[in-house]
């Protein structure tokens, strides 16, 4: 598998000719296509976006959020000044690696020992498990358990298990103890463990005091991306308990069993992990908008905008993890991570399908210290309305907003058209008219939205779909590699060719048949961009509304 990587210097224009957008570092404001500055690319909203400006993947992962104070000192990465010390650390790592694999073997030993102890688990444990999905009941002694593509573990700094993707946490408590030992061992040397690479596995550690998150993956994802997924799990936990509460609890009692508080949320976390493996939204750090006629969307948005209440912050209309409309309070922006967590919450439970749900939820990127209250209801089979309020007492007011919205839709006579649009949530790549093009993902950075056609043949089976996403993941990780980012990538694989193009305004990933040439692929970019421009008012949300 050869990755043909090239940087076309010729495309770049001098910095001076471009307006640096939103105080980005100058190096990022270089746009390969003059005129396509952020905000003018296809899909860019007319009055700014709906989301917090996350200019790039790095912004999403960089530890600049509110919980910075809590972070353990060894995580002060990301600073350019730390570059040298980073080199130092990685050197230390290479020296350590043998020692660590040695410990990893001990870990397996430990695991085997723990299995013997497993027999005398209290009946209480058994009961608890009966309430969880069968997936959780897996026997950790079985080979099948070891064969999973990606394990995810969450533990407290006291080494207490919080979550395990497969198998019960009780059975894995000694394994998690070893993980904590690894973390502490390096910490004692004023160092931090980031990952272990051995035997086709990547073991990635993310420390977010008071929690430690560990992934053990056999996927082709980069360490950075796995860490990114672990961060999502961390935010998922925050969304349930808030950062403030989490810290308060562990300050009070270091060996607190967090599972008590998270009981019943395993399904949400499981779903998040599954979703990240098949939905490119997470990789793109953006939301997919449901294609629909611009006029229709504007009417729907206006109806949503008019059904407002004092305590409402966001009104979100979605269909199967695709955004139909989002209305926000002026000056308040939603972060894509928060939106993903909301999408995940809704898709992880069928309990929202009946009645009206009213649930506290923390949007950790917006404010990690408090709860919003979300009113969740399904208007139709696949149409979910999410109203985010600041006031927990406001259920009936918000519920009334829902009725007013439905009433307005009916009066404007768009209910039917909306349902029609929901029936065709995807479009075919053949509409673009590029014969060799099989699939693509295009993200407009300023709107935080991306568009992508339906995945069609030959990517029919789940494995093939998965493989395609993995290829995109690979290109994405190369393009966003923190030490050596790339702008243009042409990748020739045995079954397809891929092209990636990342600028300050947009990101484009294209998948071609393996028979095409590079020249043809590059020339097709223009055609695709023109097509997206022509269809942008259908594919994107160009006129987002505020209350």
């Amino acid at each position, binding site marked *: 598998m050869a990755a043909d990587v090239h940087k076309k210097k010729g495309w770049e224009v001098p910095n001076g000719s471009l307006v640096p957008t939103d105080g980005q570092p100058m190096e990022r404001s270089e746009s390969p296509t003059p005129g396509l500055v952020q905000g003018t690319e296809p899909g860019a909203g007319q009055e700014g976006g709906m989301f917090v400006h996350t200019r790039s993947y790095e912004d999403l992962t960089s530890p600049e959020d509110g919980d910075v104070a809590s972070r353990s000192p060894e995580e002060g990465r990301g600073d350019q000044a730390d570059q040298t010390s980073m080199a130092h650390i990685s050197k230390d790592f290479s020296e350590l690696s043998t020692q660590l694999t040695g410990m990893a073997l001990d870990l397996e030993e430990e695991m085997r020992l723990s299995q013997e102890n497993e027999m005398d688990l209290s009946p209480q444990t058994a009961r608890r498990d009966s309430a969880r999905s069968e997936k959780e009941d897996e026997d950790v002694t079985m080979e099948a358990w070891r064969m999973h593509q990606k394990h995810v573990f969450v533990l407290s700094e006291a080494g207490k298990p919080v979550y395990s993707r497969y198998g019960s946490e009780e059975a894995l408590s000694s394994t998690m103890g070893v993980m904590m030992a690894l973390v502490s061992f390096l910490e004692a040397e004023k160092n931090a463990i980031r990952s272990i690479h051995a035997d086709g596995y990547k073991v990635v550690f993310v420390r977010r005091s008071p929690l430690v998150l560990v992934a053990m993956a056999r996927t082709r994802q980069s360490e950075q991306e796995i860490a990114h997924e672990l961060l999502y799990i961390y935010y998922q936990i925050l969304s349930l308990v808030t950062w403030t509460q989490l810290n308060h609890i562990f300050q009070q009692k270091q060996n607190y069993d967090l599972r008590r508080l998270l009981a*019943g949320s395993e399904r949400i976390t499981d779903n998040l992990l599954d979703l990240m493996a098949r939905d490119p939204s997470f990789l793109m750090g953006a939301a997919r908008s449901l294609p629909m006629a611009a006029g229709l969307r504007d009417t729907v948005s206006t109806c949503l905008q008019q059904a407002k209440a004092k305590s409402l912050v966001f009104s979100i209309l979605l269909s199967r993890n695709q955004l139909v409309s989002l209305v926000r309070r002026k000056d308040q922006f939603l972060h894509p991570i928060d939106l993903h967590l909301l999408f995940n919450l809704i898709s992880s*439970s069928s*309990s929202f399908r*009946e009645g009206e749900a009213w649930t506290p939820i923390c949007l950790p990127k917006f404010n990690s210290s408090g709860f919003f209250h979300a009113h969740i209801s399904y208007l139709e089979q696949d149409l979910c309305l999410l109203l985010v309020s600041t006031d927990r007492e406001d259920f009936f007011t918000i519920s009334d907003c829902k009725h007013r919205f439905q009433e307005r839709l009916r009066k404007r006579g768009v209910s039917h058209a909306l349902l029609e649009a929901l029936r065709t949530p995807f479009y075919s790549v053949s509409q673009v008219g590029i014969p060799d093009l099989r699939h693509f993902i295009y993200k407009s950075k300023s709107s935080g939205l991306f568009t992508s056609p339906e995945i069609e043949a030959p990517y029919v089976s789940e494995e093939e779909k998965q493989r395609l996403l993995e290829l995109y993941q690979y290109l994405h990780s190369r393009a966003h590699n923190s030490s050596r980012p790339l702008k243009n990538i042409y990748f020739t694989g045995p079954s397809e060719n891929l092209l990636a193009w990342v600028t300050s305004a947009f990101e484009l990933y294209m998948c071609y048949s393996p028979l095409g040439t590079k020249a043809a692929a590059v020339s097709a970019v223009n055609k695709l961009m023109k097509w997206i421009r022509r269809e942008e008012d259908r594919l994107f949300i160009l006129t987002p509304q505020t209350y």
Partner: protein
Amino acid sequence: MSGQRVDVKVVMLGKEYVGKTSLVERYVHNRFLVGPYQNTIGAAFVAKVMSVGGRTVTLGIWDTAGSERYEAMSRIYYRGARAAIVCYDLTDSSSFQRAKFWVTELQNFEENCRIYLCGTKSDLLEEDRKKRGIDFHDVQDYADEIKAELFETSSKTGQSVDELFQKVAEDYVQLMAFQVMTEGEGVDLSQKNSTYFYSCCHH
């Protein structure tokens, strides 16, 4: 559905996995969904119109999550409730301990809320009597002590589910009738007065 006026606020309380949602599901939609357990997130609201002796009564039912995580929030769901259906799993004694906790909460914060103790999953006992996790008479004594009604239901077979909610609605209607009566007396008194003055002026 909820745009309408709600006459009786009913709150479902109890440990997770005792079957509060199933109970509401059986009552409102008359069905029992078989499948993996889905815990409630936050709380769900549903309104149901029913008739008691020719009168329509709207029950606004709050189905709360049993998870400890929402415990601090729970007061917003039971505040002002006229009826609380406190559920426990007939086969799980720990869930009864949890029910007692909710009863104490209600007694402390919502004096005017009537309590209905509800033992769930009674169909499991039919399969095997030994599965009963807590003695019936003990529960009965406790119910008497706290002046609560006691029901044993099965959402799977539908046993006693309608009766439970019917009782909640009937109690409400009765209470209303009683209040109207007492209020009526007050009105009578003032009317007497006004009649008196009226007649006084007239003559």
